[in-house]
């Protein structure tokens, strides 16, 4: 589903990601840990092909197709879907318009909007006046309507209260139960791990991928207890 081979990415001429090798198969959920500034968001944005995230070496493969050089919308059409951490307001464009663009099935739109308590947001300008939690729910809503095969989720639980995390978690869990779907999830709080069945995690520090493939809950507990410094020490030893 997603394969990164010897990937190097620069932002504003500075190398951020170094020699990343990562593979998520269909049905797989990978949780990405790492301290602030380690390059987690850069990784997701580079996969999506956003401007300013320059791949200097290596390959990004989505759904079996090399996407280096493809535009953002072409990658979206190949199945990649991103949840923005800070989505922009788009004045004059209503959530309903995007929903209809993404999905022709009005019943599905209504059902999902209800599930994510977004019925009243459909007629509002997208992200305009949305609270942090509403934005996240709206992002998840759009991704589900898009039917993305590869979910790139950048801190899906940040700014969301406990009650709404459980709503989002339930929707996400149901979505990812489909074995054709897979996800790469960045989390700081780890809350989302209570709702989804993620089997592997990986750790990004200083733009390099360490420790790939371990159980994410164990990894999270270890990070919580020992901090990322411990990871550095451990990495140094190995």
């Amino acid at each position, binding site marked *: 589903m997603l394969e990164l081979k010897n990937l190097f990415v620069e932002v504003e001429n500075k190398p951020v990601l170094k020699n990343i090798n990562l593979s998520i198969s269909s049905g797989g959920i990978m949780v990405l840990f790492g301290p602030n500034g380690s390059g987690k968001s850069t990784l997701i944005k580079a996969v999506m092909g956003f401007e300013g995230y320059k791949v200097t070496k290596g390959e990004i493969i989505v759904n079996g197709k090399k996407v280096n050089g493809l*535009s*953002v*919308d072409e990658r979206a059409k190949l199945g990649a879907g991103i949840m923005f951490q800070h989505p*922009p307001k788009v004045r004059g464009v209503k959530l309903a318009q995007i929903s209809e663009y993404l999905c022709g099935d009005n019943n599905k739109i209504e059902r999902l909007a209800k599930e994510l308590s977004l019925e009243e947001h459909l007629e509002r300008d997208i992200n305009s006046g949305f609270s942090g939690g509403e934005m996240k729910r709206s992002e998840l809503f*759009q991704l589900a309507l898009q039917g993305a095969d590869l979910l790139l989720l950048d801190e899906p639980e940040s700014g969301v209260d406990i009650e709404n995390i459980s709503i989002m978690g339930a929707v996400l869990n149901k979505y990812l139960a489909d074995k054709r779907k897979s996800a790469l999830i960045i989390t700081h709080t780890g809350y989302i791990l209570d709702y989804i069945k993620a089997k592997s995690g990986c750790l990004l520090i200083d733009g390099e991928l360490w420790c790939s493939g371990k159980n994410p809950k164990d990894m999270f507990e270890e990070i919580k207890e020992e901090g990322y410094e411990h990871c550095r020490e451990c990495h140094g030893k190995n």
Partner: protein
Amino acid sequence: MVKIDTDKILGKDDMAKAASSGMDFTEKTRSASFLQKDNDVLFSRSLQCGIEIMRIEEALEKKKNMRKYYGKAFKALNKEYPQNTNGGYFIRVKKGHTVELPIQACLFLKKQGFKQKVHNVIIVEAGAKAYIITGCAASRAAEESFHLGISEFYVQKGGYLNFTMIHSWKKDISARPMSIAFVDENASFISNYVCLKPVKEIVMYPTAVLQGEHARASFNSLILSHPKTLQDIGARVIFQKENTQAEIISRAVSLGGKVVARGDLKAVAKNVKAHLECRGLVVSERGAIHAIPELETVFRDVDLSHEAAIGKISKEEIEYLSSRGMTAEEAQSIIIRGFMDVNILALPEALKKEIKELEEKTLKGSF
């Protein structure tokens, strides 16, 4: 009522052009119609009681007590106006009549190089209420033609006039509308203006004079500016009495042309409340928007405000929509459509829907 055989008098192609400025030839959704081609009035009739609609010269001849309105607004403001006009409409909505279906009027340019100069007078009498949708359009043949439209509006005590003007010109046409509205006590004048098609040059600065207490005015415009176009478009409200209110709202998108968006709120009485809002979106690097909002008062007890914002479509917005699968062009298009929001026009639902459909049709293939 006999159906108008417009096919015969205007031809299919020109009918479609007139329709693009809001003309409904079936008249099913209209209460009165007026159509002038160059200098010829092709038809003019009222389908509902309480409405008088006719060529201006006919009104001046037959309706002696209406003569006093002709030129009155311009004289009152010491403004000159061209005398050499030919045609134009006279519309009168009689005292106390409410006309729910819009009255339609269309001024059509047909001949090459023709200079159409019309003088319109619209009177909404005390307690009457009406919607007018008026379109200006040009035939394919009307190359380098010119349109001058003088309009005088009188909205009398407690009256309500909602006037929507749609310009559907083409790239070699110049237009000079000159409008003044006098609004009496407790009366409302609402002007909606839509211009989405190419044009060579439009200069207009309509004025509303609120001459009675609790009078209100509102000017709303949607402007799309194509390359090699100059649209110098504004609105002015003069508050002559206390407790009057007004609002001027405009949205301009430049695809390469120049837009000057003016607005002037001038208080010559106390306790006036008004707001001016101008938003511009410059899509093409060659485009230009110049917003000139003005507020004037000699009294402290007024509440006048304005906000103007001009910018381009941000890269983040495009990328955001692209990540949902839209091409950059599709994303740009949906943002422009959203920006040109018909909801800023003060229109009843049916008419809003109609204008929206017209907008969709016009914007399709525009960029």
